[in-house]
């Protein structure tokens, strides 16, 4: 009886989503990006592929954290021989680091441009190409019209797009399916061992279409995301300087 009820509720929720005009990506295969509890924030409880995600970064450190987080998302997406296009001006991404997120850096194609207008053009062209697994673009600002064009492109090709907005001048409304902010937070010491340990981020979902925004702490450990319950993070020893 209880199970039946939850089924009915889920079905009703799906119907509401349809009425709201939500179109699920129909690539046929469902890829679990391994976000764990974060998935609950999305419609149908799946990370939306074939959509454009926007990441806000206000400092160099946050850009690095965002780069790491996106690499983590890309690793299951690129598992099936996929190729990713990385489009930017003044790129600082260091390809060997991708290997630590389980991706072959040789499957990345870097497009290094001089003009912001070329970057947005290249992202759009890349998103139109269905031979790609994903397109990552680094931009400062993007207009609503431009983001709408990107969204229309991915609806055709089912490619997933990631836009990293470094130090955006204004946070205008965009047509992207979600808006994230990834910032680094201190990691746990593993069983009192010295050293830096796993990378840990505070993942904030600022906006998500048809979903529930929220904030989580995630680790990148043993080649996948690991959710860190909030209260555990609070007990972390305040003053502990370890060297090795």
């Amino acid at each position: 009886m209880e199970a039946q009820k939850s089924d009915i509720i889920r079905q009703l929720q799906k119907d509401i989503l349809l009425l709201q005009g939500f179109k699920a990506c129909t690539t046929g295969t469902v890829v679990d990006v391994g976000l764990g509890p974060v998935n609950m924030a999305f419609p149908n409880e799946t990370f939306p592929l074939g959509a454009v995600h926007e990441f806000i970064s206000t400092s160099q450190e946050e850009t690095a954290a965002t780069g790491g987080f996106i690499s983590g998302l890309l690793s299951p997406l690129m598992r099936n021989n996929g190729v990713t296009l990385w489009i930017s001006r003044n790129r600082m991404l260091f390809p060997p680091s991708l290997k630590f997120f389980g991706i072959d850096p040789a499957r990345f194609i870097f497009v290094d441009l001089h003009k912001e207008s070329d970057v947005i053009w290249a992202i759009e062209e890349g998103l139109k190409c269905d031979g790609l697994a994903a397109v990552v673009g680094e931009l400062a600002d993007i207009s609503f019209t431009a983001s709408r064009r990107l969204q229309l492109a991915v609806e055709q090709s089912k490619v997933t797009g990631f836009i990293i907005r470094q130090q955006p001048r204004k946070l205008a409304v965009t047509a992207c399916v979600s808006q994230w902010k990834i910032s680094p937070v201190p990691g746990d010491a593993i069983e009192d061992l010295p050293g830096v340990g796993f990378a840990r981020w505070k993942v904030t979902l600022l906006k998500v279409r048809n979903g529930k925004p929220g904030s989580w702490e995630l680790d990148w450990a043993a080649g996948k995301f690991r959710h860190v319950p909030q209260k555990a993070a609070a007990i972390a020893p305040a003053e502990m300087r370890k060297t090795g």
Partner: protein
Amino acid sequence: MAKRFVTIWFRYLKTDWFSLRQPHLKEVPFVLAAPDHGRLVITAANPPAHTQGIDKGMAVADARAIFPSLEVLDDQPELTNKLLVKLAEWCIRYTPMVAVDPEDGLILEVTGCAHLWGGERAYLMDMISRIKGFGYHVRAALADTIGTAWGLSRFGEQASIIAPGQQSEAILNLPPPALRLEAATNDRLQKLGLNQIRNIMNIQRSALCRRFGQHLLQQLDRALGTEEERIEPVVPVEQFHERLPCLEPIVTAKGIEIALQRLLEGLCNQLEQQQKGLRQAILKCFRIDGKVEQVEIGTNRGTYNAQHLFKLFEFKLPTIEPGLGIELFLLEAPKIEDVASIQEKLWETVGGLENTGLNELIDRMVNRIGPGLIHRYLPAEHHWPERSIREAVSLTEEAVVDWRLDRPRPVQLLAQPEPITVAAPVPDYPPMLFRYKGKIHKIKKADGPERIEREWWLDEGLHRDYYHVEDEDGCRYWLFRSGHYGADTSYQWFLHGFFA
């Protein structure tokens, strides 16, 4: 199929050029002269001078004795070749195979070209009248062999056309110099009273060979077509090319697009049949005023997809200036490679690096943003971070060595390490705090040091001791100290990257 050749003879090539530049010279006798053994010798004479009996090889003093008011101009030794090459390039509109015949002529291989101008007669007449229109005295002939055509253009009737296989009858009445012989042989033949080729052909070959050498027989064979003669075209002919001569000059963008589409279809058909793909294509537009406009595209993998190639060209077409009109389009594929035929797949996996769509995307990007901006990296066998990756040559190049995973590497690497000020316990401890861009970061956790030696055989300098550190806010950095601690201040701390 028998070959057909046209030879064009410019009787007064150099003097025509001078009278074109200085029109008043047209009616007056003038000669070009160059110093030779301490005297001025005539190297070319124009038609009025010629009728006075002045010819090349005479001394200027002798010519002045015949015609006192003769104008003498300095000869330009390189002029002949320059003019002939120019004219040969202009003649490419008639056939791709145009060669310079040293001194005063051009040789064109016109096999299969004449029908485009409505027959051989119309073809040859068009050629003659247009070159005449430039102001040159010209004689031309069309025959099966270069030898026959050459002889007829110099010694036969103007614009004679010899039907296939008729060359032996055609040369019977010509004088022996029509065979392109050496001067000494010509003299000897004349002294012996052999004034027509007919006389020579009646003599036994062995006797001819004994008296006049192998060269005479060879030239005779070449004229008759029993020995093949090759020409070296001024512009090498690409194996894969398409031509489109236009009835009327094209001036509109739409017209150029249609022409390009037609050429691409033809070329791609050709390529597909032979399982080739082009890597580079050049569209040449020959304008009415003799200028050639050209645009070029490249692809990163062999392709014979006409639509894709058209898209690449489309972006560059506006740079073509049609001027008064384009009369010939030529599409060449100088760089080609083998392509395996694409098999139809039952299901499409998410494409890898060989994906056609991806390759076409890269082509479009390179075409718009220019080369050198698209990179792909492979591991290199160096520990030094800046040298640990190298750029891949092609999209499909495989890594020879594995990517290293044993040491942490930052997600973001500064192109140039930035100096920082630190407070650190000596000698080998990580810093306690560092100041970067005016902000003090207190270090909570650290890994290291990882010493990376500079490869002395590549460049000189100090080694680096790298530390992976995390500050109180949780931001992770890659710092290094360059050099050893010591009493001297030769060491310096730098920030080199940001971890995720």
